[in-house]
């Protein structure tokens, strides 16, 4: 069995200032080392000033992921030397001496899988290293501290994923969620980063780091499963280690193992007094939370009679459930939901592809209405959809340019049916004895018309001809 756990870093990009100073949380698009102050570069004598709003935003993520929030939260220093870390320690949270991080023991249900959240912690992002050339061979490393001190939330899951696909769905949900509750813009470069750990069968756990995008984590996990399975298949033990994702070669590469043996010598960060989060604060934050995925799912089932399975898939995806909200009405809701989940989600299943979609809510409602009023067939609808998401053309344009119009006219249909009857004489005589064979003939008509023939009219004419 494959077990996958995740460590996700989410920047709180919706905040004005950094976690411990007044510098901008939005560090992007500043000249290097211009969004800095004595605090975020850790000059001697500087002390952290905790941004209370960051604590609230992190608490909202904890609530959204069903975590417990302790009454008292505190900070720790994680000590290690690295050039992107100006103080040579990172202010973070740590639960080894009792739960004091902003969240722990959470759980979320995604498409009938329960994913447990081990802990959520609030911490500062380090600066950024810029290598001249590849990081392996560079002689010069530049440091930009603009990012140093940006509020970051680390979400650690239990190893509850069994497939990379589950991981992808979870990450999509999480990405929607942080956007939805107004804490982060997951589409900003580096705002949402993920490391994975994975073990196959009884093999050791391997950590995968340095994964640039959500698309790549799925690839990296697939690669790792194959690699570990092939090792196990040859009775070679899997090494417990950290591996880096090599984006260019699309493989994971073993990192120097020293990194794992690091002792972070955690120590309480006494410059930041314990923060009390009382019941009133939590209640206030809860009121600011948008409708939960579960509540949304329930309303889809109850209000529109959408099947539980479709409602689950739809509600879990903010992008598509937003699209659904805009495109549907009382009458077509069920069909809109079906089109989204069976067709559209197949075309665009990643964040990147969703951004590229040219489809608007109006496209979708026009399309569903056209199908429901028999203007085009379900099948033509799928072809039209494919064209619309690529071009953004209107439905009527697409119908005429691809000649998707419904063949309903009895005269032209009769002609086609006659042709089919001529070609399929054996089937015709069979159909006269056995009604089941009628469908075969209707299918042939459909193929000839590329799915444009109106099914009920076709059946009617075929029956008439058979009995005559």
């Amino acid at each position: 069995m494959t077990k996958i756990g995740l460590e996700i870093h989410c920047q709180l990009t919706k905040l004005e200032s950094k976690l411990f100073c007044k510098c901008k949380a939005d560090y992007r698009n500043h000249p290097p080392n211009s969004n800095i102050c004595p605090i975020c570069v850790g000059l001697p004598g500087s002390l952290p000033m905790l941004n209370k709003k960051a604590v609230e935003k992190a608490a909202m993520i904890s609530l959204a992921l069903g975590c417990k929030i302790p009454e008292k939260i505190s900070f720790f220093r994680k000590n290690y030397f690295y050039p992107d870390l100006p103080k040579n320690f990172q202010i973070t949270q740590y639960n080894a001496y009792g739960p004091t991080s902003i969240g722990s023991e959470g759980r979320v249900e995604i498409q009938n899988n329960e994913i447990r959240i081990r802990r959520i912690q609030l911490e500062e992002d380090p600066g950024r290293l810029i290598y001249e050339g590849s990081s392996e061979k560079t002689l010069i490393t530049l440091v930009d501290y603009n990012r140093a001190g940006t509020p970051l939330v680390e979400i650690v899951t239990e190893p509850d994923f069994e497939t990379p696909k589950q991981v992808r769905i979870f990450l999509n949900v999480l990405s929607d969620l942080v956007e939805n509750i107004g804490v982060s813009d997951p589409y900003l470069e580096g705002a949402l980063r993920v490391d994975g750990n994975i073990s196959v069968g009884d093999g050791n756990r391997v950590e995968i780091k340095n994964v640039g995008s959500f698309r790549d984590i799925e690839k990296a996990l697939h690669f790792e499963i194959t690699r570990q399975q092939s090792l196990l298949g040859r009775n070679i033990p899997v090494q417990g280690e950290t591996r880096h994702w090599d984006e260019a070669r699309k493989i994971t590469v073993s990192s120097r193992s020293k990194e794992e043996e690091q002792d972070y010598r955690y120590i309480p960060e006494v410059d930041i007094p314990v923060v009390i989060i009382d019941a009133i604060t939590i209640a206030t934050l809860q009121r600011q939370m948008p409708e939960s995925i579960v509540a949304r799912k329930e309303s889809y089932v109850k209000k529109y009679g959408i099947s539980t399975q479709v409602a689950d898939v739809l509600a879990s995806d903010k992008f598509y459930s937003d699209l659904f909200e805009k495109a549907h009405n009382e009458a077509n809701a069920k069909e809109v939901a079906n089109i989204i989940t069976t067709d559209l989600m197949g075309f665009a299943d990643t964040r990147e592809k969703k951004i590229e979609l040219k489809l608007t809510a109006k496209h979708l409602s026009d399309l569903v209405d056209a199908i429901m009023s028999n203007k085009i067939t379900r099948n033509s609808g799928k072809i039209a959809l494919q064209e619309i998401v690529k071009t953004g053309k209107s439905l009527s344009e697409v119908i005429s340019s691809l000649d998707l119009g419904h063949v309903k006219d009895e005269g032209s249909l009769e002609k086609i049916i006659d042709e089919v009857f001529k070609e399929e004489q054996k089937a015709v005589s069979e159909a006269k004895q056995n009604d089941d064979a009628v469908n075969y003939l209707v299918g042939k008509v459909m193929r000839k018309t590329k799915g444009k023939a109106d099914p009920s009219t076709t059946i009617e004419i075929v029956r008439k001809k058979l009995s005559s």
Partner: protein
Amino acid sequence: MNLGISATEFVSQVRDGTISVEEFVAKTIERIQKVENKVHAYITLNDKNALEKAKIIDKKICAKEKVGSCLGMPISIKDNICTAGLKTTCASKMLENFIAPYDATVVSKLKAQDAIIIGKVNLDEFAMGSTTEFSYFGPTKNPWNIEYVPGGSSGGSGVSVSAFESLISLGSDTGGSVRSPASFCSVVGLKPTYGLVSRHGLVSYANSIEQIGPVARTVEDIAFILNIISGQDVRDNTTIDNGSVDYTRDLDAGVSGRKIGIITQMTSDGIDKEVVSATNRAISKLQGLGAECTPVSIDAVEHSVAAYYTIASAEASSNLARYDNLRYGFDFGIEGYEFKAYVSKVRGNFGPEVTRRMLLGAFVLSAGYYGKYYLKAQKARAKIKSQLDEAFKKVDFLIAPTMPILPFKIGEKIDDPLTLYLLDINTITANLSGIPAISVPFDISSSGFPIGIQLLANTLQEKELLQAAYALQETTNLPEVPI
């Protein structure tokens, strides 16, 4: 001109025109130039700026313009407190060339009251030491006998005030660093309640323990300066609201009817005979003023030195990690070094005491030892605090000698860290528990060395503490510094 006046006297003499600020500052600079080669209190002198500032203040006074309450008073600042534009070296090679781009909160508060920062004074490197011998720039010497240590780590603060090189000094007290030189140099030194004075701009050594504290010639001067430097600060999340107490009011309230506990563990074993007898005389004097003195046992004090050095070293190892010479520091090229090798190489430039404590600290925090050492030390700390809380239910103040022994020769104990650590036995209790403590000069030994008496009070009881200290001060008549 008498440079040996108190800060309070300076203020009234400037006000009534007896002296001018420029004249006083100029004479102070002259005095510094005269005695520095003997005592070495200063690392950096701000003489030029100080004189300019003095002239401006004199002009303002002449023009009857509004002038801050310090009226151009020359104040020295321990060199681990940041001053914009003036070097802050922490007496370390690692910060040999460091100029902070900002003032510590205490420094901006002083400047806002028209104090003159006359210079930056010596300390044990990063405030780690009890003698000011561990300075990269060489030791500071005791003006009562320049072959002897002045105490530490704020030795420069104690000496500059004692030797008339400044009127007041700001030091920092992590384990007694303000009170020790105050006691050894016959001046007053206060360690305020943790959180009463902002640490913003104080270069961290042991940040859960240390406080900036003033050194001055009289208790009145301490009250005066505490009014200015205390109070909540957004730049230090650990500061607390003191309700804007005026420490100078009712300073002469006396100790009649006050209960004073004599800490048994700090007045018996290992205490110099003359120090013991001075302490007993101080107790009699206070009793004579109507105070009720009884022995109080705080047995957790026995664990205080071990707890202190565990916690302080642990915090130091983390606080001093940032000195990697990458962004500031001393000249040392990066060519030919990979990151970790460079950092190891440059960090070899810390002095012996700092290195010792960082190693000790890294050890007690390392995996598997945290519970055995650091957590255990924190438990001892909590026990000390709870025993003090109990004691303060019965008494208003606690009393003990500040230092267990008299000043000793420079170099005498420098190779014996444990003996040096044990010198802090009487002072670190206040640091570990966060309570305020003050050292008042009380007597001179037969060998000619100052003896200070320490009074301790409960959290935020500085006003009462200063009243008691004032009462004790008024019973003394001490000779002038012999330099």
